[in-house]
């Protein structure tokens, strides 16, 4: 005898977009909450202090106005802005040039079928070496690289540019290699299966497919560099940050206001320009 039809409960069987309760997700939420609380006490985070004790901040802000638009300040600002621009651009360019071969070496080889154990080990050596170099470049923050280069080479924009170049190479190398590993593999395999060697498969299969992403990533790194370049001056590595630090130390807050305003404008202009070019490339 046929059993009576039961009412279909889609809510129970399908569920919504939010993951269902599980012990794993509950534990993850508890861990996140625990870490947040621990960090809150660890940093003496006090939102009430920020909201009630406004006097020092308002005094600092009021002393910045009106900004200093004297010819000397505008000249110094212009020089700082140009230096920042030069550092960020050259840093990104050198970084991209260094990153590219390292990324090519640090990309997993698709062709391992039939390779012997020793062949696989030999192929793995450049991969791991390139990845290690990229990790070192990337994991040391650019401001620490700047400190290293300032100690080695002295004050000025040159050590700052080198710091940006090394850090950019690390970041871009990792992103480039991830891009190469993520390109659709079938056109590359199709080339390899008709006799292309690894170099040819890379050149005609992987590179064209990754090129627009490379350009987009490099432009984004330039955006990041221009923000970083404003900070590097705080350790004597040139750029507008150095001017800001000097003016802060001299309590010349109107000049600080002009320099900070110029920095914001430059960052916004570069961001907009870079974003529009990236959109054009990826669309």
């Amino acid at each position, binding site marked *: 005898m046929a059993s009576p039809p039961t009412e279909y409960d889609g809510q129970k069987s399908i569920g919504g977009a939010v993951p269902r309760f599980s012990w794993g997700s509950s534990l993850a939420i508890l861990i996140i909450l625990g870490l947040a609380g621990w960090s809150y006490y660890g940093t003496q985070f006090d939102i009430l202090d920020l909201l009630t004790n406004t006097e020092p901040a308002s005094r600092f802000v009021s002393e910045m106005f009106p900004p200093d638009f004297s010819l000397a300040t505008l000249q110094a600002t212009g020089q700082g802005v140009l230096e920042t621009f030069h550092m960020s651009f050259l840093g990104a360019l050198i970084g991209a040039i260094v990153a590219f071969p390292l990324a090519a070496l640090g990309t997993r080889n698709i062709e391992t079928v039939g390779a012997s154990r020793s062949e696989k080990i030999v192929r793995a050596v450049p991969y791991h070496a390139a990845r290690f170099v990229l990790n070192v470049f990337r994991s040391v923050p650019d401001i620490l690289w700047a400190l290293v280069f300032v100690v080695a080479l002295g004050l000025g924009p040159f050590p700052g540019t080198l710091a940006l170049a090394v850090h950019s190479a690390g970041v871009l190398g990792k992103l480039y290699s991830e891009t190469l590993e993520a390109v659709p593999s079938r056109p590359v395999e199709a080339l390899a299966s008709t*006799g292309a060697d690894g170099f040819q498969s890379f050149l005609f299969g992987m590179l064209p497919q990754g090129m627009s992403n490379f350009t987009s990533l490099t432009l984004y790194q330039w955006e990041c560099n221009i923000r970083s370049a404003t900070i590097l001056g705080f350790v004597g590595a040139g750029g507008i940050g150095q001017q800001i630090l000097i003016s802060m130390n001299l309590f010349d807050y109107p000049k600080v206001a002009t320099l900070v305003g110029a920095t914001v404008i430059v960052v916004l202009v570069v961001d907009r320009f870079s974003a529009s070019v990236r959109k054009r490339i990826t669309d």
Partner: protein
Amino acid sequence: MWTNRRESLTSSPPNNRLEIKRVSVAFGRNLALDDVSFVIEAGERVAVIGTSGAGKSTLFRAITRDIGVSGEVRLGGKEIHSLSKRGLREARGLIGRIHQSYNLVPQLPAGVNAALGDVGEMGKTRTLRTFLIGPEAALAKRVEAAMERVGLAGMSATKTANLSGGQQQRVAVARLLVQKPGLILADEPFAAVDPVTTERVLDALLELNGGGASLLVSLHDVELAKRFPRVVALKEGRVAYDGSPESLSKEKLNDIYDGDMETNPKESDEPDEPTGPDVTRLKGQDGISAH
């Protein structure tokens, strides 16, 4: 041994004889190919049929060593899965492939994709030259001729991504025409193209076959498969049928397709009806083209 391979293909046809001997492929616990054996003589033309998942694509990937196998795959007497890296490259240079999803590089101009049929013959300098400024005059001429042959004259500079699916499949065929392989593996080449493109692609494949290339085509369309002198059917990774299309009875087809042939609109009991030019039987009734 593999040098001057194009000349050797026509002068000594056994060089592209394909021998598949007790080949098995496993993905985890699933046997995608199970003890498959058959021989394709030089210049032979064979259709491979079977349901999705029967092992057709896996068979092609096993032949080009895209996946590891147990058993032997011999092309021109050389065991593909035992070759050195260099030997494998040279052997693969003998094999031309086209796929259902074209597998061209969409960012490259169509002409460069076609020129890559010659990639196995390019040294480092020619490779760089082709990459930076395009193929040299002789190769460019071959590319233009191939593009014209597939009806894409004057479209060599068009970005491949801007071409329709059918046009991209024709570029893939142009690549084969440039390559002039000894063995063509066509994996569902007509699945995503219109009937006119199907005939055009088929014509080009037959032209290559007429020049001495063996042709192995996997198909879902049984009617089309019956136009080949020999049909190999795979079922659950095993050879379920290997013979002429005349002997492929409806009962056998039902067995191959698990009874779905009753409703398969692409198959009928009627004798082959011409649906296009030169269709009742592809030339070379014995399965070996007259070359």
